[in-house]
């Protein structure tokens, strides 16, 4: 097989598309954050910073000195890159504009959950590394929420896997796209559960407030309060990537329409890209609307909120066990 020019050409072609997908995630993630901030500002009768402001912030942070506490271990310095890499890979594995890309065989939902969990684990260790009170508070809250959100995400995974017969995200999307799945109660329950998990995991209102200056109320921000400069840039970028990954996941599972199923057809790819952007914008606006219309919950009420997501996802999975018709 090796040496066959046609096959090499094919795999090169596929590699390019896969590279596009990975870069796309990296590049659009800050814009998504900027978009949500902009929409939120407009809803609040403010003008708001430009949509592309997060890029400037990343640029600024990259050029600032990274201040590291004297008590920090080497872990503290490495953690931002580790969690960035894990999050990036997880985000890049979520099919965005096309299914069946080169690495899609590895785009297993359970793998994505594990990658995001790894990123959080690294950051949680770093949060406690310096030994300040805020790092500890933020980490304990983040882990508390994650310990409930992760099982919920896994139950969602199992539900869609029951429907599609696989945990490969690309194949699930193909299945939902090409088979007459129809409107299903189980999918509706999963959608609600996944939205709750997404809001929780990405630290949005009503669980966490990414815009707050009140250190005592922070969750994610408290955990990374000691970071500055390029380290902080990596963390912020990873947070944006995580948000993009979750919204892409929702788009891929519940509105897969328009996704290209073959890398051979440039028109389909173009349609896939355009619809993907439209979906992201739509979901970003939805996040902004949710953030404006509800207050943040008390810390211990979040467990009910995320627990509800787990219950919904479990119910969806159970329903499918009872009958594939749900």
């Amino acid at each position: 097989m090796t040496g066959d020019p046609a096959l090499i050409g094919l795999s090169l072609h596929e590699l390019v598309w896969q590279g596009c997908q990975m870069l796309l995630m990296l590049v659009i993630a800050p814009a998504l954050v900027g978009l949500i901030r902009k929409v939120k500002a407009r809803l609040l009768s403010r003008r708001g910073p430009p949509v592309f402001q997060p890029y400037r912030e990343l640029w600024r942070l990259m050029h600032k000195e990274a201040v590291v506490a004297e008590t920090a271990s080497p872990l503290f310095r490495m953690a931002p890159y580790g969690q960035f890499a894990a999050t990036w890979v997880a985000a890049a594995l979520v099919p965005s504009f096309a299914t069946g890309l080169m690495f899609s065989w590895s785009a297993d939902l359970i793998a994505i959950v594990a990658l995001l969990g790894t990123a959080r684990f690294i950051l949680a260790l770093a949060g406690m590394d310096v030994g300040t009170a805020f790092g500890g508070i933020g980490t304990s809250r983040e882990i508390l929420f994650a310990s409930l959100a992760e099982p919920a995400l896994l139950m969602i995974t199992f539900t869609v896997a029951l429907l599609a017969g696989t945990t490969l995200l690309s194949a699930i999307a193909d299945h939902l796209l090409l088979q007459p799945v129809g409107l299903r109660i189980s999918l509706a329950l999963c959608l609600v559960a996944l939205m709750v998990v997404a809001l929780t995991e990405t630290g949005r209102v009503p669980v966490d407030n990414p815009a707050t200056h009140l250190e005592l109320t922070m969750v994610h921000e408290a955990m990374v309060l000691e970071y500055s400069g390029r380290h902080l840039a990596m963390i912020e970028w990873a947070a944006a990537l995580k948000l993009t990954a979750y919204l892409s996941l929702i788009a891929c599972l519940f509105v897969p329409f328009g996704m290209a199923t073959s890398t051979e057809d440039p028109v389909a790819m173009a349609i896939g890209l355009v619809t993907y952007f439209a979906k992201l914008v739509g979901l970003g606006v939805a996040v902004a609307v949710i953030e404006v219309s509800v207050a943040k919950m008390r810390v211990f009420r979040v467990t009910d909120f995320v627990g509800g997501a787990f219950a919904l996802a479990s119910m969806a999975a159970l329903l499918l066990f009872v009958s594939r018709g749900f």
Partner: protein
Amino acid sequence: MTAPSTSSPETTPAADPFAGAEPVVAHRPWPRFVLQDAAAWTALAMALGRREGDLVALFADADAVHMAVRGAIAAPVGGVAVASLPVPDGRFPSVGAHHPPAIRLERAIRDLYGHIPEGALDARPWLDHGVWGTGTPLAARAGEPQPADYSFLPVTGEGLHQIPVGPVHAGIIEPGHFRFTANGEAVVRLEERLGYVHKGVEGLAAGASLERAAKLAGRVSGDSTVAYALAFARAVEAALGIAPPPRAHLLRGVLAELERLANHLGDIGAVCNDAAFALMLTQCGLLREEVLRTADAATGHRLMMDMIVPGGLARDVPADGTERVRVLLSRLEPRFARIVELYDTTPSLLDRTVATGFVKPADVRRFAAGGHVGRATGRDFDARRDHAYPPYDRIAPIVALREAGDVDARLWVRIDEVRDSIRLIRAFLDELRAGPVKAEVVPAGEVREGIAMVEAFRGDVVAWVRLAADGTVARLHLRDASWFQWPLLEVAIDGNIVADFPIINKSFNCSYSGHDL
């Protein structure tokens, strides 16, 4: 002005602390007594401890300590009275040992004047952080600088950890240090440390001209500049026996209520923003901005600084200025109603405010906490009504009162006060007639003393002034409402979680600058 006597044989203490004491002639409008001995001072402190009156202020001179009280204990002598105790040896019996609200005031006296409260429960410094380069700056002779280290009260128990917060915060707010001892999220104890913005106002005021002292008073706490300037002006007017013209009184009322409007609007939005509900912040912010711009158009300053001076107003408010205030009110009213509706119909927000940061009625009464902190817990006191000063003597405020004592109740007190301020401003403007706005201020040619209590948006502000024969200020003491609210914040957090502290703190919105002086 005389409060009805509520004393009866059962409640009257055996010894009247004021018995045999001669009132100081030059002190107005409420009397000041120089107590015969330390025993009378202690008797007064113990009476406060038995809740026979409220502590209004506790302050000092180079050679005396003064305690202002109101309520039953002062009823026989006019409702409010100042008791003075000469301290030739620099020692006086501690009031805080019998009446805890006095503890921090005593610590401040010790820091500034060096008078030592004997038998005090807490001998740590308060305002002095050991960075002044001197000790007891206002005493007759400067003392030793304080050591810079400070020990927080010990907390022992299993699984407890400390969270130091501040004095530099992540947001642009005033500096204060909060030391939490927590078990996970549950707060076991909160201890405040304040004094970071001590500016030496009392030292600066000594020897200042009336004009300069009025400016100083207006800069103690920027958000309450009208209230402070009014308190100072009223104290001076009382001392010198000056009656400002009617137009000045009414305009002062308009300014004071505009200040209340602007601050309450800002607070209502800010409290909700601490629950990450930014919509309330921006909508209230818009209204607050309109109030400030109208104030700017009417007085030439957004916060109406330096408008109120002893004798009346520094300058008149032109007719188009008062007209703009009227227009503002008609624009404000419907929009504020919608904001209140938004608050009242957002369950996720109410879930954060209701039953959060509860303050016990007994604590509020013991500390005589004024403003929304007191009134949200059923303490029915408002200086505008209970020590009715013009223009509230003719047009009385409707005192907003709630019983729940939580964040929600403190918000509703503010909401009710916004509504009432709108009504009051309209009523003042209706009464307004053309005329002079300033009476002449002439030195009395002798030492005079005056005291005044004014309701700022946070609560009652007290100004006590001693004027020298040439009309300059010999001694000025300004007491912010926050002195008696800060300690309650420490108990309001009891039983709450760490993450709820910011919203509770914001619902109090105590002054750092006014407290640290």
